[in-house]
């Protein structure tokens, strides 16, 4: 019996090796999600990317995913499980998976790991990818600055990480550009996904006179809260986050920032199949089609819409960078000289507000 087990083991090993060389066996692609696929936002979009990979490669890939994985020790267990389950490449799709991903990658040198929105690549099999959401926030900020009547725009923030701080700064700078009186109110939810808390945060803002709300959390609850307030006579505008959230259009949702991961996932899985895969640190934006602005509804005045579309065109063509000087830091010191464009490194480690935002960043 022992002999047969060994034989079977040797056989299957040989078979896998052969299959791999011939690329007959489907490539197993794993995804680790921070929220449920049905969150209507961030995780939903990553799952759309997964489905796009399946559609592109058909029988040549097999995808697996695990949803609602807490950031932290649990994530390490899930990623390890996925690697043990025979995944060839694993996409971990939230900032908090950064260290767990690198830890697991050390133990599975033959598996490729791709971490979204992080910056640590401690092993040759770890790549990172991110999208330049601040490009989309610049457009939303412009619309927000025009739409507000109370001159108070609200931002429901998740965690104080560079991506979110970029978003707050970009929104504020561009709202301020079109409306010098604008003030930004930041409320930290300390969660990516908690509909009840997000709705409460939106309500607290509405109660205090905020009339345009942007969010950096993943559920559609703030849109629902705004819709409810509007039904009771308020005039609140919101923006779709990560997904289009078009169920809430034409108001309160007047536009949206959409994450489109499909091109990246298809490119990376394809590269792994044809052997051109290399470690990268990808940071695509509007030019690459990774950051998309959803339909701007008719609730937005035509000239504002035209201004927003012009900005989209300029960013897509590479003619405009949302962080172009002169920009000062909140403490008054100079960050960017007139005409100077922010370096990627500065943006990726951004831990300060720009001048005019009256608040402390939690750390």
């Amino acid at each position, binding site marked *: 019996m022992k002999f047969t087990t060994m034989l079977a083991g040797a056989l299957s090993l040989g078979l896998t090796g052969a299959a791999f060389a011939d690329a007959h066996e489907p490539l197993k692609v794993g995804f680790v999600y921070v929220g449920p696929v049905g*969150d209507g936002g961030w995780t939903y979009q990553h799952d759309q990317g997964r489905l796009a990979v399946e559609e592109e490669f058909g029988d040549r890939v097999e995808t697996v995913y695990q949803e609602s994985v807490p950031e932290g020790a649990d994530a390490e267990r899930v990623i390890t499980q996925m690697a043990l389950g025979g995944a060839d490449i694993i996409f971990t799709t939230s900032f908090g998976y950064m260290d767990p991903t690198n830890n697991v990658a050390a133990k599975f040198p033959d598996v490729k790991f791709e971490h979204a929105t992080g910056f640590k690549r401690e092993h040759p099999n770890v790549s990172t990818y991110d999208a330049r959401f601040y490009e989309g926030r610049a457009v939303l900020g412009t619309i927000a600055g025009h739409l507000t009547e109370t001159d108070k725009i609200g931002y429901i923030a998740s965690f104080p990480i560079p991506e979110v701080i970029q978003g707050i700064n970009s929104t504020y700078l561009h709202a301020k550009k079109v409306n010098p009186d604008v003030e930004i109110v930041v409320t930290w939810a300390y969660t990516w996904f908690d509909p009840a*808390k997000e709705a*409460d945060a939106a309500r607290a803002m509405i109660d*205090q006179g905020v009339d345009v709300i942007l969010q950096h959390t993943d559920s559609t609850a703030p849109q629902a809260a705004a819709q409810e307030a509007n039904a009771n006579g308020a005039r609140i505008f919101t923006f779709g986050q990560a997904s289009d959230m078009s169920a809430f259009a034409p108001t309160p949702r007047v536009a949206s920032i959409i994450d489109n991961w499909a091109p990246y996932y298809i490119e990376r899985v394809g590269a792994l199949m044809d052997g051109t895969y290399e470690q990268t640190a990808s940071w695509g934006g509007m030019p690459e089609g990774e950051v998309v602005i959803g339909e701007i509804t008719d609730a937005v005045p035509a000239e504002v819409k035209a201004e927003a579309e012009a900005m989209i065109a300029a960013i897509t063509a590479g003619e405009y960078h949302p962080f172009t000087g002169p920009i000062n830091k909140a403490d008054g010191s100079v960050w960017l000289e007139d005409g100077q464009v922010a370096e990627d490194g500065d943006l990726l480690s951004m831990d300060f507000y720009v001048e005019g935002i009256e608040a402390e960043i939690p750390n």
Partner: protein
Amino acid sequence: MDLTAISPTLLVASLMVAATPILLAALGEMVVEKSGVLNLGVEGMMIMGAITGFIAAVETGSPWLGFGAAVIGGAAVALLFGVLTQVLLSNQVATGLALTLFGLGLSSLLGQGYVGIKATSLGRLDFGPLSDIPFFGRVLFGHDPIVYISLLVVVAVWAFLRFTRAGLILRAVGESHEAAHALGYHVRRVRLMAIAFGGACAGLGGAYLSLVRVPQWTEGMTAGAGWIALAIVVFASWRAPRVLLGAYLFGGITVLQLNLQTAGAQVPVELLSAAPYLVTILVLVLISLRAGRSGDAPADLGKPFHASS
């Protein structure tokens, strides 16, 4: 910082809305635990209530039928737990955890066609001129019916456990199922009824989330509310008035800290975010310390019972 931007009236009003789901779920769980059963599946029962209530409200257009369906949905999954633990004598802790996972999974399956849809919600009750009284009008007379029902349930549960014979039997079953059995009470039947009641309350709380507080269906929308309800039962040392206090404290500080942030209060945000947990635990622990040991856990909590043993 502009603290004048915070309206105390709106704050208290939204506090009551924020606390109601946890209050209902915690009350139900308290009754279950009083009967000697530890059901860790509150989160699963809540989310099942949230989806069954939402589906019923969308399909029928009546929020009342939605809440009714949530009560049934919550009680139904709770009875699944009841049959497994009381009849088949499975481990309560493991079964409760499984119930949470089961509820989360089943609800997302049921809810697939309901993302992004809006259900008709309950309006505020109309108390006529009473609602126009400054401050108290909005706080006391400006809510939807479920807020009042939840407060009635607090009183009812308290009175039931304290003054009725049935409540006494329920407590006896939780303190010593052997003695209760020897006296001729049906331990299993009492516990199954308590479990169903707990599920119904959790389901109602879940539906309050999906129909009033958030108002929409999103997968995983309870986001840990069930676990907070479980904790509140323990810190409230199994007493209905303290459950009310704990839930309102937690809901209140959650809403207050968001309002303080929005108003730009100069308090570290991390501290504000942690405040609901810290303050609720601290206050409830202090109260139960002062009250001595009388409010401790039911003696037979979590122990399996079978008449033959």
